[in-house]
């Protein structure tokens, strides 16, 4: 970069490695091919793989109005209710924890506290699932929506915590200090100064927690009661009997939803950096 002017003439570009671009393109193909192919086939009027029967929305119609639509609607309702509740609770807990970890000075138990908050990230999902099932069984708690919600709140906390803490670390203390110097109360300094600066991080944390909760299969599968399904468990059950076109349509809908979420969190992230730059 800045050394470019004294580069020996004819020397190779140190930033470029031959073949890396091909591997990067290969990486994208691997990641996208299965998803795009399923999306394309979900619009195929024919159930044949090799014949294109024309563009059709019939499988989407089946998702919303077909034989299995009630099952999937109930599952979707459960999934979204749980995801919104779990994301809301875990985001509140994580915001409060981030303030306690980063704005409350040094304290002895800090590494331990950090490890505890991030514990759900370190334990494999299947182990969490087993442990939670054993626990609820031991305290004789009837399995249902409630147990799924509790389990989701727990593993969503670190996912919400990470973006919030990253954001909070980047906010200098001078703004709050200025507010306090101008006779704002602690609460006003938080509500009117710190919180708006933290907001993009909190929103990112919420979105991440929401998606993680919506995504979960293993833990939900262990702690859900009989007859209660979320979207992933309902899809898993249906796939066991074969991949029907309506599953492809549901997959495509969820793909679009994830795409919207990434775009949204991306825009929020951008908004955040602008705030940061103008603040500097």
């Amino acid at each position, binding site marked *: 970069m800045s*050394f470019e002017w004294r580069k*020996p003439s004819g020397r190779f570009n*140190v*930033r470029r*490695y031959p073949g*890396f671009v091909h*591997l*990067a393109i290969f*990486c994208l193909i*691997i990641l996208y091919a*299965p*998803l795009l*192919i399923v999306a394309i086939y979900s619009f195929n009027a024919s159930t044949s*793989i*090799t014949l294109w029967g024309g563009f059709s929305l019939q499988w989407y119609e089946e998702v919303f109005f077909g034989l299995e639509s009630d099952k999937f609607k109930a599952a979707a309702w459960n999934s979204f209710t749980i995801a919104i509740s779990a994301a809301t609770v875990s985001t509140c*807990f994580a915001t409060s*924890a981030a*303030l*306690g*970890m980063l*704005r409350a*000075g040094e304290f002895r138990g800090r590494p331990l506290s950090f490890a*505890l*908050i991030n*514990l*759900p990230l*370190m*334990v*494999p*999902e299947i*182990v*969490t699932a*087993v*442990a939670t099932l*054993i*626990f609820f*069984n031991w305290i004789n708690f009837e399995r249902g929506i409630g147990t799924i919600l509790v389990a989701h*709140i*727990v593993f969503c*906390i670190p996912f919400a*915590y990470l973006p919030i803490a990253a954001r909070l670390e980047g906010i200098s*203390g*001078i703004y709050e*200090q200025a507010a*306090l*110097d101008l006779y704002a109360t*602690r609460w006003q300094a938080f509500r009117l100064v710190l919180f708006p600066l933290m907001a993009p991080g909190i929103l990112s944390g919420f979105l991440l927690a929401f*998606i993680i909760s919506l*995504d979960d*299969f*293993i833990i939900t599968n*262990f702690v859900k009661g009989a007859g209660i399904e979320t979207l992933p468990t309902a899809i*898993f059950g249906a*796939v066991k009997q074969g991949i029907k076109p309506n*599953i492809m349509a549901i*997959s495509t809908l*969820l*793909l679009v939803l994830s795409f919207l979420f*990434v775009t949204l969190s*991306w825009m929020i992230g951008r908004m955040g950096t602008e705030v940061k730059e103008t603040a500097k």
Partner: protein
Amino acid sequence: MAGGATGTGGHSVSTAYAALRTWLLAPSWITIAIFMLGPVLLMAIYSVLTKEFRGGVIWEFSLASYDQFFFDRGLFGDEPPKFHWTYLAIYIRSFVQASVATVLCLVIGFPTAYFIATRPASTRMVWLFLVTIPYWVNLLIRTVSMKFLIRDTGPINEWLIAFGVLDTPIKMINTDFAVQLGLFYSYLPFMVLPIYAAVERYDFALSEAAADLYASRWTTLWLVLLPAVKPGIIAGCILVFVPSLGAFLAPDLLGGAKNFMIGSLIEEQFKGAAGNWPFGAACAMVLLTMVLLAVFFYARQQAKVARSGG
């Protein structure tokens, strides 16, 4: 950090919430301690209890689960213990498959991450965006899509047959290859993102200096770039290895009944026909120990980097 702006009024912003610290941290602490740490400890206890048929346990100390893990005592449990590989083999196979998946992800993920990090700002965002999307897409949906693609009557086989390349479909689904492909495909984005973050912080003046001193392109990569971005590579490897080791969806949906991994073995003890809770708890304990060892090595490596980096 909180900047260290100390106020005139005696309040430091960095300690503005010191009095509230316990209250701020308590909700997360309590939730995770009760519903995560407690259950894991309870699971450890369950692994040394006696099994009750059709699930559940009898509160009597017994090492039968760990005994069953290593020794075969015959159908009725009255024969002399004979060491067996039944369960250990599943762990070793899972370990190998997770390791291979990690290496594959590294081989594809590192060049991709490097390539993205060296793009000009405008196209870099597009690439990063494209790699991030699969990271957010439901893992079940991604695994099902892979199953659809590679099954006997899936697009790959049907099209190859339609074009006359093949007569009979290639058997891909329900093989070790499928599980391996599934693990690689599932966790590839987990490798790219941390390496990208490390390369982005890398100072290319170091590479320039190496090249000025007549290092070749690949020598520069091996001796200068790789050591500098090592923390990102290790983080990526942990993020791929840990979930691969305990994976359930890829082996279950792509591997079929013969390609058991640890995740399926554990699930079977609780949800399947086996119904042996203490044994399932013991299997989970063995997995947890393996993972915590990996995380421990990672933490020690990080500490070493932090010390040498000053």
